[in-house]
């Protein structure tokens, strides 16, 4: 055991939130390392309080620690205060479980949940004592792995990451462990690194960027081609066919200090076919795979008993769509073991599912913040993005909230969407004002917070060809809203910094050349870029200019149908011609139905992979199958019943 704890502890008295670095969570493992065990360090490249709750990382942590031939520990990006002490005291990146140096592990595996963490990935590799560029690493260095949603466009990080994992990680991590185990057993001899990477390249779902040549034609990408015949031309994503086989995490980590989403989280289904065209998560996680209701109930009651949490969240991309969600919710709140102390939250609850009776029940426990996401200001634009919430659905939902005593609701919108005109932008103000007017009927002090985020087109979505709005245009649109709402004290407008949106755009659809920019920004101290106090647009602009790259070419330019996209050799199963057709339908303001409940339109995923939706019921919930435009009920029927959770008041 080589614990760095005696060298870390004296530094903790000098930093903010030292509990970020102690580990000790309930559910944490202190695994025994050994020469026959492949050691994984799972790294979340952001602050502990953001990274700890990540379910993907926790799932892999458990699966690996259950194996005889693997151990897994966790690390998080040290905050800037500790980082500078670590560098001056020569303390490397460490695991929080047993405080081992990162260099002692065979693999450093990063979770990529957002593009703005990319410079933190480089920083963590450097703090681990390994060269940041993959080409400079030798057999003595760990293999750098990355997975998560951003791995679906791996190119911006291709020079720094040895191995990307595309799609669900539950199965493929075991296959990687076996390959790396042989390498470790053979003594990691000189020259062996290239061999193990080549072997990993033939594991399905694994992309090894150094095994591919990239050809350019001027600013355009010509092709990305494998360098060897045994390396696949296209890397297909991995998909776990049946969630019931993976009831993880079984021992959700309970942190000792405050983190985001600090509650029991149980994933009730993976994948979503609502078909919102801006939503990368929905596109790349198809098909829908529900967890059996019985297993959900067991995971909830076991989890609550073990953790002592008083809140459980049933997570998915659209939880009201789970077959028989009402029965599951009723079962949880009526379970005598939970003795009326447990509040329940359903993130991504659609507005057409939020009515008076839901509002009544929720506020019995705790009147927490309510956020609805109409996403766009007019019905026309919501048809373009395929988020078919009608104005009256929204008004019904906010009326339910205000009538049950809420004084403020939050509305979430995007701006800079395809075909957006000023009247669509101003529709945000119109909706917000009407919501306030409804609220005033119940409470003179009723108010609305309207949050507006700049839209960033994402790979593997129908909007991947769309030219993102630039900083000036987004600022102009925010300005329109600000002017329009200037006299409305009851509407509070908040917006995401358009400058950060621009940088997200560079990384989101960037190619391999953007790697030099990421490295440059990191070398100049640009870490924690998703934190507004550290974000610095000038660093990015200067780095793009220095490397001869045009922001306009990468971000605001519309792409053409025949263009080679940097992620064309990575497949989420979606056919490119399906995505193009959906993009054309979008421009024609045509909706697309949800294929869970309507006939298959052949996006490519189920047919190519030989898998299908796993749902307990083929009937759509009340509120309708969106996109068909005819069966949207007015939101009177509630697919979700939240039962009383009294007994405390």
């Amino acid at each position: 055991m080589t614990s760095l704890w005696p060298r870390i502890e004296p530094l903790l008295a000098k930093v903010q939130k030292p509990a970020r670095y102690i580990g000790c969570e309930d559910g944490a493992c202190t695994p025994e390392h050994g020469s026959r065990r492949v050691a994984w360090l799972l790294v979340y490249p952001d602050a502990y309080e953001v990274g700890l709750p990540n379910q993907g990382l926790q799932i892999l942590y458990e699966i690996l620690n259950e194996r005889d031939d693997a151990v897994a520990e966790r690390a998080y990006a040290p905050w800037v205060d500790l980082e500078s002490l670590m560098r001056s005291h020569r303390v490397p990146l460490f695991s929080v479980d047993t405080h081992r140096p990162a260099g002692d592990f065979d693999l450093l595996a990063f979770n990529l949940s957002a593009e703005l963490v990319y410079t933190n990935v480089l920083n963590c590799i450097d703090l681990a004592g390994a060269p940041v560029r993959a080409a400079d690493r030798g057999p003595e260095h760990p293999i750098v792995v990355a997975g998560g949603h951003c791995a679906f466009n791996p190119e911006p990080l291709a020079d720094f990451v040895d191995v990307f994992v595309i799609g669900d990680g539950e199965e493929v991590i075991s296959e990687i462990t076996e390959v790396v185990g042989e390498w470790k057993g053979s003594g990691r001899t000189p020259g062996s690194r290239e061999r193990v990477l080549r072997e990993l390249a033939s594991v399905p779902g694994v992309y090894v960027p150094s095994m591919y040549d990239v050809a350019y034609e001027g600013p355009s990408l010509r092709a990305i081609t494998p360098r060897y015949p045994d390396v696949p031309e296209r890397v297909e994503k991995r998909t776990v066919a049946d969630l019931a086989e993976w009831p993880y995490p079984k021992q959700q980590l309970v942190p000792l200090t405050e983190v985001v989403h600090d509650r029991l989280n149980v994933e009730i289904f993976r994948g979503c076919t609502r078909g919102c065209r801006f939503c990368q998560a929905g596109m790349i996680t198809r098909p829908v795979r529900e967890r059996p209701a019985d297993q959900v109930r067991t995971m909830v009651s076991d989890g609550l008993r073990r953790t002592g949490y008083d809140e459980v969240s049933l997570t998915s991309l659209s939880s009201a769509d789970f077959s028989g969600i009402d029965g599951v919710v009723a079962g949880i709140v009526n379970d005598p073991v939970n003795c009326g102390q447990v509040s329940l939250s359903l993130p991504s609850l659609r507005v057409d599912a939020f009515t008076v009776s839901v509002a009544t029940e929720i506020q019995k426990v705790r009147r927490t913040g309510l956020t609805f996401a109409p996403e766009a200001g007019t019905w026309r634009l919501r048809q373009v993005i395929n988020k078919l919430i009608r104005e009256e659905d929204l008004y019904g939902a906010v009326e339910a909230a205000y009538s049950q005593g809420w004084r403020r609701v939050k509305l979430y919108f995007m701006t800079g969407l395809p075909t957006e005109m000023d009247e669509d932008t101003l529709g945000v103000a119109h909706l917000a004002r009407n919501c306030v007017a409804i609220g005033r009927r119940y409470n003179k002090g009723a108010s609305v917070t309207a949050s507006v985020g700049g839209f960033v087109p994402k790979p593997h979505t129908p909007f991947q060809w769309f030219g993102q709005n630039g900083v000036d245009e987004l600022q102009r649109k925010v300005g329109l809203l600000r002017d329009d709402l200037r006299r409305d004290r009851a509407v509070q407008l908040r917006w995401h910094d358009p400058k950060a949106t621009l940088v997200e755009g560079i990384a989101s659809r960037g190619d391999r050349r953007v790697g030099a920019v990421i490295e440059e920004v990191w070398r100049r101290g640009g870490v924690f870029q998703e934190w507004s106090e550290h974000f610095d647009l000038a660093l990015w602009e200067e780095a793009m200019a220095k490397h001869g790259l045009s922001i306009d070419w990468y971000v605001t330019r519309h792409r053409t149908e025949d263009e080679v996209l940097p992620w064309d050799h990575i497949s989420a199963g979606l056919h490119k011609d399906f995505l193009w057709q959906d993009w054309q339908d979008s421009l024609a303001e045509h909706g697309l139905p949800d294929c869970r409940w309507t006939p298959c339109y052949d996006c490519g995923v189920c047919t190519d992979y030989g898998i299908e939706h796993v749902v307990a019921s083929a009937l759509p919930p009340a509120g309708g199958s969106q996109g068909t435009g005819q069966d949207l009920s007015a939101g009177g029927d509630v697919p979700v019943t939240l039962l009383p959770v009294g007994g405390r008041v």
Partner: protein
Amino acid sequence: MRLRVRFQKLGKVRWTSHRDVARMWERACRRIQLPLAYTAGFSPRPKMHFGLALPTGAESVAEYLDLDLAPEAGVHVEVEGLPARLSLALPSGVDVTALTIVDPRAPSLQEDVDSCTWRIGFAPGVDLAVLVERALASSSLLVERERKGRLSVDDVRPAILALSAGATAEGEPELEALVATRPRALRPQELLQALDPALEATRVCRTHQWIERDGLREEPLAVAPHAAWARAQ
């Protein structure tokens, strides 16, 4: 029914904050299904009453907490096995060392405790005897300190009730200080600042909290000192 609990906080867990400790206690009580009383209102909170906050990074063998049980549940609670069950449900390093039923009408910990004892350890070579002598001989010791964002210069000499220099069994210099907690608690860091701003402690541990009654000091809930220290080692 009100329970008074004495607990210790030792090891890595000392880097958690006072608020973190409150959250740990809420979860531990729910895990063992100890039925706490809750406040009324839209955001009901369990009725838990802490005494003095422990600074983040300090250890303690003398932390106290009063827990109000739900009125209907109180009579059924088995007090006997509770310390062990609670210790098991709390994070490692946080352990219950004593527990008793107290009169809910009795003064709260906040009202009652008026001083506490600290043991503060230093790296070998620090000469504490001179500093202690000088501090005790001075009639006033001015320290600049911050409370709720406001700086003030205070004389902390009256808050130092006793001070002595010694050494641990391993021979490391150690300070033992009895300090007043009223009108405003003297924190270990402020004490060091008063002695010598350059002093850096390697270890800070609260060993006692005291209530003065009729000229005698007693603890809110006593543990045989050897028992507490045996666990601490």
